[in-house]
């Protein structure tokens, strides 16, 4: 299957290893991966900030970049949801773009669900963890996969010592521009989240969202907590022997 990778600006800039893991895992399961180099940002910061005109300009641009492909896969549920859910809303009154937005929305997938549902990969069967593991459920995955599903992938993996955090779907306080617009509130939410994660005793946090990882890993480092975040794509690539484990 031919797949276009929508890597997202955060992953491209801060987490290239996640992008690499996505490519290697997709190839492992038989996909031919393309990377349209014209891609930039999906426009979510503008959209969430209430700047719909600016967001729509970027949406049209991204549609042009990705519409030649039959399937678009992104390591971020949040950015995939921007295309799947918000592009059609954003362009619903634009007769030239409405159809194109809907077509791209239908072809865009988040990485883990694409693997599980389109490629029929049993994620749990391939995952291995050498240490206790906990997870952060990203709020923006709500439309894509539920907390039970993520938990199921982890629980099912061989020999896993999964430490389910209390209130696993609690927000980490990132919220995009929210984190810098309301730093006091965001910091308080981050404190709550870190307390829940640290209480599990695990040091490895599965976190599939770049924004949440920036927030959680940065917050843990500031507080001297020994937590490190990994995308499920990285865990899969390591388990499958496609990438060297990273300390």
């Amino acid at each position, binding site marked *: 299957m031919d797949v276009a990778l929508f890597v997202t600006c955060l992953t491209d800039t801060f987490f290239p290893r996640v992008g690499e893991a996505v490519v290697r895992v997709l190839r492992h399961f038989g996909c031919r991966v393309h990377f349209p180099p014209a891609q930039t940002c999906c426009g979510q910061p503008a959209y969430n900030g*209430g700047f719909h005109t600016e967001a729509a300009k970027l949406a049209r641009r991204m549609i042009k970049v990705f519409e030649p492909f039959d399937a678009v896969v992104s390591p971020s549920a949040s950015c995939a949801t921007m295309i799947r859910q918000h592009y059609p809303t954003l362009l619903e009154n634009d007769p030239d773009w409405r159809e194109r937005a809907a077509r791209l929305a239908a072809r865009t997938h988040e990485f883990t669900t694409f693997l599980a549902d389109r490629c029929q990969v049993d994620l749990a069967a391939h995952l291995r963890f050498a240490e206790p593991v906990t997870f952060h459920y990203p709020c923006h995955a709500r439309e894509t996969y539920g907390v039970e599903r993520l938990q199921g992938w982890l629980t099912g993996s061989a020999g896993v010592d999964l430490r389910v955090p209390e209130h696993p779907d609690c927000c980490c306080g990132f919220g995009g521009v929210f984190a810098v617009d309301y730093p006091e509130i965001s910091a308080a939410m981050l404190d709550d989240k870190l307390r829940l994660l640290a209480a599990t005793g695990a040091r490895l946090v599965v976190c599939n969202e770049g924004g949440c990882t920036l927030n959680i890993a*940065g917050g843990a480092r500031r507080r001297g907590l020994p937590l490190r975040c990994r995308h499920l794509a990285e865990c899969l690539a390591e388990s499958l022997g496609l990438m060297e484990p990273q300390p």
Partner: protein
Amino acid sequence: MSRSREFAARVRRALADERVTAAMRGTTWRKVTARAESLGALRDPERLRDLAAQIKQHTLERLPEYLTQFARQVQQAGGHVHPARDAAAARRLVCDLARQYGLKLAVKVKSMTTEEIGLNAALEAAGVEVFETDLGEFIIQLDHDRPSHIVSPIIHKDRRQVAAAMARELGCAYTEDPIALTRIARAYLRDVFRRCDLGISGTNFAVAETGTLCICTNEGNGRMSTTRPRVHVAIVGIEKIIPRLADLPVFLKLLSRSSTGQPLGSYTTLITGPKRPADRDGPQHLHVILLDNGRADILAGPFAEVLRCVRCGACLNACPVYRRIGGHAYDSVYPGPIGSLLTPLLDAAGDHYDLPFASSLCGACQTACPVRIDLPGLLLRMRAALHGGQPWSKRAAIRLWQWAMGSAATYQLGQRAMRAFLADDGAGWTTRGAGPLSRWLEARDLQRPPARSFRQIWEEYLSRE
């Protein structure tokens, strides 16, 4: 409009109060768990939520019809109905009724609608003594405080604060024992109930088919306050209507479960008209005030969905922002996610700019809402509606950013510039910086982008492997 210093100050004040924060955290999480467990015990809670949302939406779409039917039924049952366009009109109506009937002592059932219109102060100015009879509201009144939650008004107080207020205001011996405190309040209010002549309530649901008011309480004070006094005045927001009595169970099943995790509140009171000759108790006169106060305008606009709200408070309990900043930070009768929408809608003249923006859009509210209000979606819509009013610096920044994202070349230039701008602490992290970066760094470090971006890796080797 812009970010308000007052909002920031209220937030800081709330966050600094560790006693309140700890109480709030414990209580809200307990309620979240209780809600999930009690709804989970139903055969098909999701279908029930769909149904509740559909009934409310249907009613809103035919509201004038149902309001007419409701008014007719109330009158047929011997009650009176008065429309009130705004808060001032509603206050005037209640004060006029008090004067007309010569009423001197009012007992109140917990009601957010009467908070919204500021009824207590108006009645007191008109010479009517007012007593809140819900235990939480009673303590708020004693302590000259304001409710911080639409269901649990004293969620921000711990038992020591309650004990201190009761000892100070009632002259009773200081005790922190909740049972003893409740007994003291009960004895005090019994005397008030004996003397009262006006009962004031809101309503949870107003049934158009029968003209019935449904009031849900846990303490029985709702029943006392609406049967004992000579006159009962109910202030009913026009969005409280449901079509039929048969629709009521759908909401009763969801309301307390969403709110406190109880299958049903302890007292569900259905009131149809005043006392009939054969009745043993009940008020001689029933007056229903149908309050608009901005609701009709909301109904006509793009935020009509918020009028489905049944005021269960589930979105407050679920909200990680509310959990930390508490109700008072919102400076509104309606705090939490629903308050962030209702407040600017009901008080268009006020400066509530921050409310729709002070949210991570995590969606916990939507997951909890029994009538499936798309709270994050509406918050986004509200932000867009306010976008012209955003600070010029933010608008300029977004436009510059959007321009930079307009081509891969400028995007990559931005990537490189950012990497150069982020100072390395020697271990690949940024811990110091200016501007928006400094706000990020208030609570967390920022990992520096690695030397090569994904697209560089792709070009260098990954594409060719």
